[in-house]
């Protein structure tokens, strides 16, 4: 497993060169944005169960066949497995975001995931859709652009109350990890 720093080291070692100016600038940026990154990880982990259950619910709302007899989220046992998998994927994405490198996500989560789902008969398209919804709500939580949605009296949403700033680079990075999962399932 690598993080942003050890990724730089491994690629420098392949050239047997020390790490100097150019590569250090990218790492200095990681350091300078460090607190934002930790806030972003916190935004995901603190809202994890909300993000996961919302994504699985959304996936089922769009395809109600999943919870009818014979569907892949029927009965509760399989619905529970689905929620659990959503949480696992989100957990590895939070690791990748903390480390600033996708290797933990690739090695420990995505490697063989598609083959496993095919063997178990899990519909890849639905799984990908759930991850896409997690991406939308996670990036909204990081950016604090989450809203109450279409229901004006909805009160069950929260803002993280962190100082607002430019998080576009981090949001793009987080989104790339979700896209990585969707790509691995596709």
């Amino acid at each position, binding site marked *: 497993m690598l*993080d942003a720093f*050890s990724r730089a080291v491994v690629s420098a070692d392949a050239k047997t060169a*020390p790490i100097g*100016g150019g590569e250090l600038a990218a790492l*200095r940026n990681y*350091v300078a944005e*460090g607190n934002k990154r930790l806030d972003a990880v916190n935004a995901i982990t603190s809202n994890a169960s909300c993000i996961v259950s919302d994504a699985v619910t959304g996936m089922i709302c769009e395809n109600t066949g999943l919870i009818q007899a014979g569907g892949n989220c029927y009965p509760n046992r399989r619905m529970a497995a689905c929620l659990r998998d959503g949480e696992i994927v989100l957990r590895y994405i939070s*690791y990748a975001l*903390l480390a*600033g490198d996708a290797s933990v996500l690739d090695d420990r989560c995505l490697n063989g995931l598609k083959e496993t789902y095919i063997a178990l008969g899990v519909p890849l398209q639905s799984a990908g859709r759930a991850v896409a919804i997690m991406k939308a709500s996670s990036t909204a939580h990081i950016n604090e652009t989450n809203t109450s949605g279409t229901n004006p009296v909805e009160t069950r949403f929260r803002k993280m109350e962190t100082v607002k700033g430019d998080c576009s680079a981090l949001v793009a990075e987080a989104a790339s990890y979700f896209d990585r999962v969707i790509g691995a399932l596709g």
Partner: protein
Amino acid sequence: MKSVATTVVTAADAAGRFPSQNDLEAVQGNIQRAAARLEAAEKLAEGLDKVTKEAGDACFSKYPYLKQAGEAGENQTKVDKCYRDIAHYLRLINYCLVVGGTGPLDEWGIAGAREVYRTLRLPTAAYVEALTFTRDRACSPRDMSPQALNEFKSYLDYAINALS
């Protein structure tokens, strides 16, 4: 590769939990010290060739017998390899400064070094002398800031202890 972030993630993964506040604090502590580390890495990378030359020269002047026939530096090819090895250790220290942990030195420098040196009949004392000279030669503010120097020297000491 062992670093603070990967250690924290490995522990969280073993427990099957999301990164906790403790984990985030640990990474934050690492980030706070990063500026000095990266400065030291940058300065070392800039002066790597000069530092290597000085360290190697110091080593051969302390142990001139190394250049006698049958010793580790009996011809120019072997002498060049000595300088290459010193550059290798300094490069790994550069990596350690970037990662903020001893992972690169452990995995690529120290693991198996003793066995290799014994098989090739190389004296580790010569490497210790070269690295010790580098440690005592480096000074602040000429080479780098005091905090950066502190980080640099702690990895030099780590390599010295591993070889002695």
